[in-house]
């Protein structure tokens, strides 16, 4: 079933000019309330490596999944080598010459490389025929592209870098002409990544077209010819790679929205509340995400942690809140050491550490619970909410109603299911809950992600009020403007390290952008 090649494009600008390998026109896609792609148009020239950058959630993966047929666009068209194609499912994409290497490999671990490659295109009733033909062809491919992979080893026994090559081989074996790599280096060591880049060079030299989806700017600068930047579902900029800089890209990724200037007086920092020394955090896959972070947080100040998403900020927050255990290092909260004592989030809360998590619905709320049940999450064992064995439902309800009134949560109905509230109102309730615990230190992750403008201002004012009351606030945000508007002191994270520290007065977007791209700040950490 080949996708029906429709009429050749009328808009091919000049006769005789090679049409782009892949052209997207006005691709638009919504998932419920989320506008994942906003009229994205993009042309990728044949024989180039084209970068697609953007933060998590900027819509890169959605766009590529539309090209590969996992999703269908609500509007827009896809042209391959100048011909419009209808891609309803991955099968159509493959037939049109598009191959995709996913971030999480789609391999059968206990099959050999050879078996994995022919999976789905065995060719004929008898497996042996297909295997013989495939072996010959794969050896040919390996020679052409320098893609050496042991064909008879079970894939599960190969290192991750080689498993990725198997994925690339799979795509090439299916005659892929356009190769999409989704965050290919997320799981690779730097050396493996370099080998991958060398391979991409060879593919380009052989006339293949590569689309590299990533949020790592180093990779973009290293291998791409052109780069497109996505932000909030829209394609906001496109450059020839040699004409741009990591700083500029970082700035465009994070974007400039309305200036979020917050009214606030000068900070009067007091005693150190939270002291972090040489904190090292590994994620579940064993990758080191925070590489020896040290800093202190004083009462009466807001410290912002700036950085492109995925540079260790989330793991830092989780480690501070007690959600994951750091590998080494120390966290001191008002004279209590938290790491060696392995204090639970509950125990930390009792010591005065509150946490507004980055991902409300994943961590901070139970969507199917009522607002009042959510308003006690993490504080459900407080005496005020209980009467002996039983919960004090009246106290829970009135407590929630008070919070809703004080934080202007709409609709002010404690019995309503949390999922029925808008993002901004959900966030206000989380904030109300955490601040209501009268914390001495508040950790805040992405406080205004997915929050409407009105609520943004309100939330910012609450954070400043908390600071003015002498509390310490650690603000992690990928919104540069939010950091610039709120923070009294700014830490910049890149690649899991705190690469610089600036007082607000010295921070400018350009400078921060450079530091976020991994260029060390002279401010010194």
């Amino acid at each position, binding site marked *: 079933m080949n996708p029906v090649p429709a009429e050749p494009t009328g808009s091919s600008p000049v006769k005789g000019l090679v049409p782009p390998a892949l052209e997207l026109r006005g691709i638009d896609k919504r998932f419920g309330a989320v506008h994942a792609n906003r009229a994205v148009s993009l042309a990728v020239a044949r024989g180039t490596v084209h970068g697609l950058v953007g933060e998590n959630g900027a819509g890169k993966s959605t766009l590529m999944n539309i090209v590969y047929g996992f999703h269908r666009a609500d509007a827009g068209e896809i042209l391959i080598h100048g011909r419009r194609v209808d891609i309803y499912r991955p099968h159509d994409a493959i037939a049109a010459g598009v191959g995709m290497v996913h971030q999480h490999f789609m391999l059968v671990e206990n099959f050999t490389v050879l078996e994995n490659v022919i999976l789905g295109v065995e060719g004929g009733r008898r497996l042996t025929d297909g295997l013989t033909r495939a072996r010959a062809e794969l050896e040919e491919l390996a020679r052409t592209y320098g893609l050496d992979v042991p064909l008879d080893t079970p894939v599960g026994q190969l290192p991750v870098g080689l498993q990725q090559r198997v994925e690339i081989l799979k795509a090439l074996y299916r005659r892929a002409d356009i190769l999409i790599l989704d965050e290919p280096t997320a799981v690779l060591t730097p050396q493996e990544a370099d080998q991958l880049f060398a391979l991409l060079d060879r593919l380009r030299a052989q006339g293949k077209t590569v689309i590299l989806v990533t949020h790592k700017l180093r990779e973009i600068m290293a291998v791409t010819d052109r780069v497109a930047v996505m932000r909030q579902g829209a394609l906001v900029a496109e450059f020839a790679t040699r004409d741009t800089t990591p700083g500029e890209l970082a700035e465009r990724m994070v974007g400039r929205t309305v200036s979020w200037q917050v009214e606030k007086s000068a900070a009067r920092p007091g005693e150190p509340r939270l002291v972090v020394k040489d904190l090292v955090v590994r994620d579940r896959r064993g990758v080191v995400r925070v590489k020896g972070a040290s800093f202190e947080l004083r009462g009466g100040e807001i410290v912002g942690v700036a950085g492109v998403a995925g540079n260790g900020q989330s793991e830092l927050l989780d480690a501070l*809140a*007690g*959600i994951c255990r750091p590998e080494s290092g120390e966290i001191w909260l008002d004279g209590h050491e938290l790491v060696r004592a392995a204090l*639970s*989030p*509950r*125990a*930390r*809360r009792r010591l005065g550490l509150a*946490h507004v*998590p980055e991902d409300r619905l*994943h*961590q*901070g*709320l*139970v*969507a*199917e*619970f009522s607002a009042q*049940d959510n308003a*006690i*999450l*993490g504080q*459900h*064992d407080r005496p005020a*909410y*209980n009467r002996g*064995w*039983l*919960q004090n*439902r009246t106290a829970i309800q009135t407590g929630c109603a008070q919070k809703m009134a004080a934080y202007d949560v709409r609709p002010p109905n404690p019995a309503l299911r949390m999922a029925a509230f808008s993002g901004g109102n959900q966030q206000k309730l989380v904030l109300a809950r955490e601040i209501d615990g009268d914390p001495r230190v508040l950790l805040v992750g992405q406080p205004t992600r997915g929050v409407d403008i009105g609520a943004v201002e309100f939330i910012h004012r609450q954070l400043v009020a908390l600071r003015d009351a002498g509390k310490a606030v650690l603000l992690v945000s990928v919104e540069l403007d939010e950091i610039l508007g709120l923070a009294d002191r700014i830490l910049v994270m890149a690649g899991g390290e705190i690469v610089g520290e600036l007082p607000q007065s010295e921070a400018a977007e350009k400078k921060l952008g450079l530091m976020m791209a991994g260029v060390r700040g002279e401010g010194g950490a």
Partner: protein
Amino acid sequence: MSGPACLPRWIELGVLPLLNLGVALALSGAIVLALGENPWTACKLMVGGALGSSDGVGYTLYYATNFIFTGLAVAVAYHAGLFNIGAEGQAYIGGLGVGLVCLGLGHWPFWAVLPLAVLAGAFGGAAWALIPAWLQARRGSHVVITTIMFNFIASAVMTYLLVNVLIKPGQQSPETREFGANAFMPAAHELLAKIGITVAPTPLNLAFLLALGASALVWVLVWYTRWGYALRVVGQNPAAAVYAGISPERVTIGAMLLSGALAGCLGLNELMGAQHRILIDFAGGAGFVGIAVALMGRNHPLGIFLAAVLFGALYQGGSQLSFDMPRINRDMVVVIQGLVILFCGALGNLFQAPLAAWWTRLRRPGEEA
């Protein structure tokens, strides 16, 4: 998460289950018709057999008692996000505890035996749930798999004990001796006779009231205590539980222990109330019916009670039916029960989407077109 459209509660909790039940019964009627019997007569026989006499009602509620215990067991685990398939084995081992207390202390006064028997039953069931619970919490071994395996192990252990250890000397069938008369659960007809109400003697006994008490306990525990709150947070969103400082491991183990304990109380009805001895396979599949009961009852004690009575009626009416209609044998009754489980449990949401579409159209006439 319900489907795309939301239905009002009275449709969700009232109309939908009745519709499911109706379809199951209609299909059963077709099968009865195919066997050459009159479905209407069969239906009358079943309903009459289950609910038409004090005799039938007694048996229906006696069966229902077992299903309430196992249904509650499944529901408690479900609220913590666990699917306990092992109520059968937990009931079996719990029954061993009940039986041993009754065998050993049968000469004690009943009011002394009863609390010990309850404790022993709960302890046996909980102990049998502990290992799967621990494996799930600490090692991530899926509780569905381990509890299924533990059903088989329970069965083998009990067969061994009854054949080799507990068997009453000098008899062939693998059963213990009868409990001392003090350890018999008072029968409903005896209790009612004391207050001047005469009903036919049936195995219905005091354990029915204990099952109702357990239902109330579960209701309070799950929805009105902080432990129940933690349980539901873990079931709904484990990441939020960790964030809130609730340990999913501890909740998992606690929920499975309570689940096993509830299942273990089945012996109070079946052994202390009816059989008065320990015998092979006394749980008789009630653990599995409990899954259907919990599903159909939407894991709420009130729903579980209603579903348990329905299944009790199917059991009792079914045996009446196979007795009166020779062409419909015991296996046919199992088929009918299977259809009810299929439509009310497994396919419980089959009609939700069409019903929701119909409801939306009804509410907004013209807007759709």
